[in-house]
């Protein structure tokens, strides 16, 4: 599973960082999402799914490739 982040949609609320700090961070300047681990291990997917679900701007998705 690969994380796709659309930084043009991201509003920098940081919900993703709260859900999974090992996978997401925010840009120092404009607060937009930085994906630290593009393909998180199966075990760490719960937090990533939570991030996808709570992101207020629907900027995050998971794809099967």
């Amino acid at each position: 599973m690969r994380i796709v982040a659309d930084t043009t949609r991201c509003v920098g609320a940081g919900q993703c960082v709260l859900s999974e700090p090992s996978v997401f961070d925010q840009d120092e300047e404009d607060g937009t999402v930085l994906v630290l681990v593009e393909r998180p291990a199966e075990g760490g997917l719960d937090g990533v799914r939570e991030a996808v679900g709570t992101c207020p701007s629907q900027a995050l998705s998971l794809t099967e490739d």
Partner: protein
Amino acid sequence: MTSDQPTVTLPVPRTCPFSPPAEYERMRENSPVSRVGLPGGRTAWALTRHEDVRAMLADPRFSADRTRPGFPVLAEGQQQLAARFKLSLISMDPPEHGPARRAVVGEFTVKRMAALRPRIQQIVDEHVDALLAGPRPADLVRSLSLPVPSLVICELLGVPYADHDFFQSRSARLLRRTEPVASREQARDELRTYLDALVTQKEKDPSDDLLGRQVLKQRETGRGDHEDLVSLAVLLLIAGHETTANMISLGTLALLEHPGERSRLGEDPDAMPEAVEELLRYFSIVDAVTSRVATEDVEIGGVLIRAGEGVVGLGNSANHDPGVFSRPGELDIGRGDRHHVAFGFGAHQCLGQNLARMELEMVFETLFRRVPGLRLAAPVDELPFKDDSNIYGLYELPVTW
């Protein structure tokens, strides 16, 4: 069928501080997207389901511009108060909103907020010291709930805390729906004049604080001007005062009234972040502020909303939607669900949410650890709840220990 005859008029007062108005549940069951009356005889749509509120707030066909005709007005004169000055972030639409938000959101990242932790802990400790040294009973609002977030937002923005009486009273007046419009306008003007002077000073000599850094950023990017910065300062100062403070008071009250939940928390300090999320959901103090006006015809929850019609997303109803939160009326600090809309949703979701979360965690942790015998000094039904404010909370919270 959705009837066009509104049976409910917003804002609906809470009859119990610990639950949403009973009308919300009826609306959610019978007509989740329903026509409601507004003060002054106008009407709007009210959304009561979690799914619909999120869909609406994420949909760019709804405008956040409070000065547009058709924007739901929940208190007389509201529109008058929004007009005349440059719109702040909360009222902006694309394409202005994105760049304006990005210019400031870097100040509020999770990491930036975490760096403030030691200073906030110091502020909390000093206020708990003073509380313990002072007379009993004490008013928790005056001694802790209000000064802590006030000091924090002042230091972050670069606003002298010494003037706190001045801006605390103005922001409270501005948000009180029952306050005469003229008095609310005056409060807004005074606040604006004060911050206008402060911004002017920072333009001359940019200090190392949020407003000073925004001055430099404006110069660097050529985006935004003096008026924009004053609008931002007004927004952040009010938001920093009227939200976290109310959640400190209500959260403390809820934990005092639910000793089982409080002791669960005492046994497991790591449970605090989840407890804070649950308190945010449970009280949903910003209920009807998440309003919009449709700029095109849009279908929400099977109902056609026409261009120009106002829509109120009832956050307190969405956060008690049993389709999303099981046993929504129960305070369950281990619920572990962050899908609530207490900070709104979509592009305008609260900028200061991670600051608020951190302040709440630190205040509850410190207060209950250092004052284990804390208890209410008045019956709950005699407490002065903010039934007349756009943001729910408490005017006073008498406690003893």
